[in-house]
């Protein structure tokens, strides 16, 4: 390196110039990521400011943990935290195993036409927007001859139609059911693909030893796809505080439901975008972000001890 003569460009610049065309493929995209992902990450610091929309980020006063303390003492704090945790856990306990169960069941079907039909139909809701899904739910549960009320009345389970979407007790059930309905088919794709990789000899051996189909399902198929399940479980735990956003915003639009429907994300939206309390909302969002990272790291630590790790 020291022997580089005068007038010669340093090696790095020379190499960069030689591959300028490929650098040109990636640098604009990276610049783009810098602007649209990293500037907002830096902007999170406004959680420690009293952000003023007119003077901007640079000249807003720093206030330390003021907004965090305010959030911790806010009257909504406990209900927001409770809803976030409960809704996420419900989604995890019900929404996570459901597609695995579906994949296991689909695997038992040998009639190809039936199998493909069920698969295609069950993927369908994944591609529909939450707006339309919430429209379906509102229509089915409506007191104005919503199908669900009609069904219950014909089964003589109820006398009067029930306005399900305005009764807080039903909200979590509706939310979780709708979530499962929307994603069960699509999420089952990965598990089905994993199942096709299971060695058929295992089933033959199992059948030879007198294992019933049910037994094979739980003693051969399920253990074989366990690594895939664990990876997805870790990813899900990292997302644990993402209790939902669009679904809750749309299905929980009725103010009567606020006490059971408000989660961290919808709360950030309400105080931040609708009430313009920018710094406060950012602090709430940051609080959630920190917890999420801790959860993901914890889940990965636990998984590593069991021999499966994300990184």
């Amino acid at each position: 390196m020291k022997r580089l003569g005068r007038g010669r460009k340093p090696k790095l610049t020379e190499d960069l110039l030689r591959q300028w065309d490929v650098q040109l493929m990636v640098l604009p995209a990276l610049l783009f990521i810098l602007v649209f992902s990293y500037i907002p990450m830096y902007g999170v610091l406004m959680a420690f400011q009293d952000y003023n929309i007119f003077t901007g980020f640079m000249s807003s006063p720093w206030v330390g943990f003021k907004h965090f303390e305010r959030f911790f003492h806010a009257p909504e704090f406990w209900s927001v935290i409770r809803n976030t945790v409960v809704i996420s856990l419900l989604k995890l306990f019900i929404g996570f195993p459901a597609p695995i169960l579906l994949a296991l069941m689909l695997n038992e079907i040998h009639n190809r036409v039936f199998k493909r039909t069920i698969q295609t139909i069950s993927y369908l809701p994944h591609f529909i927007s939450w707006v339309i899904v919430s429209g379906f739910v509102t229509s089915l549960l409506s007191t104005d001859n919503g199908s669900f009320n009609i069904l219950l009345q014909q089964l003589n389970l109820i006398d009067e139609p029930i306005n399900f979407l305005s009764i807080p007790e039903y909200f979590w059930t509706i939310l979780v059911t709708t979530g499962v309905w929307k994603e069960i088919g699509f999420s089952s794709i990965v598990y089905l693909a994993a199942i096709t990789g299971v060695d058929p000899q295992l089933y033959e051996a199992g059948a030879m030893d007198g294992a019933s189909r049910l037994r094979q399902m739980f003693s051969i198929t399920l253990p074989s796809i366990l690594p895939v399940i664990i990876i997805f479980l870790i990813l899900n735990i990292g997302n644990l505080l993402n209790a939902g956003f669009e679904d809750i915003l749309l299905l929980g639009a009725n103010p009567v439901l606020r006490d059971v429907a408000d989660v961290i994300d919808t709360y950030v939206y309400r105080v931040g975008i609708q009430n313009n309390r920018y710094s406060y909302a950012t602090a709430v969002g940051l609080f959630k972000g920190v917890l999420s990272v801790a959860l993901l790291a914890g889940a990965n630590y636990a998984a590593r001890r069991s021999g499966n790790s994300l990184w």
Partner: protein
Amino acid sequence: MKLTLGDKTLSAVIYILLFVLGFAAFYPFWNAAVISFNSGNDTMRGGITFWPREFTLENYAVVFKDERLLGGFAVSMLRTVVGTLLSILATAIFAYGMTKTWLIGRKFYMVVCIVTMFFSGGLIPTYLLIRELQLIDTFWVMVVPGLISVWNMIIFRTFFKGMPAGLDESARIDGCSNWGVLFRIILPLSGPVLATLALFTAVYHWNDWFAPSIYISNVDLLPIQTKLQQILNSNIMLEQMSQMDSAAASHLNRMKTVTTKSLSMATMMVATVPILCVYPFVQKYFVKGVMIGSLKE
């Protein structure tokens, strides 16, 4: 192989469960379609489930005459086409560059990308950035922020890496530049991954209602999903009101609710059909795309 009684029972139970599931997945679409084809006044009498009682195309006629709704569809179409094309193009170029092992700074670039998958500034800082960039109330606010998707870049990159290296080399020997190789050799051979990612991106653009709802106030620029959300929301309000009001007012409000209900069902159908027409054909590709995306970080 002989099936025992237990196995047969299991089989029967599974068939029944799957049938119920398939029915549950399909019924909401069917019911909405039926209501949209039923005359609004008749729907008010109740009991519409599997079949229209008074078949009519009136609801659709109203939807297709409503300029605001048509405008919404036009914005959605434009946004979906422009947004998908630009995003897929930009992301594919980025991904191809990132496949080159001799690219200086590649590891660093990758870290820059991966970090964004775990951390983000969140709603408010992003909103303020968009404001600073003067993107509020423009068409481009629906296209530009999502232009580069790190997730799609990784899927593209994995796919490109799986292609035989000889392709690249022989084209280079024939005097093709790197950009030439990408556009003349690599992309034309990437049909499946292009179809999958284009489908996912297009579905995202078609379905997104939230971003326009906070970034756009000009009604003429709102896509159909956002307009639909506003309609449905006002329906809910009406229904709430009708339950608290006196009997007479309640009847009037119910009439409004039900007729708007038929109309919103028709609008929902129109907003759903484009997706229903496309996804079954891309199904065989996206199963593979999902696998690459989810298992290879």
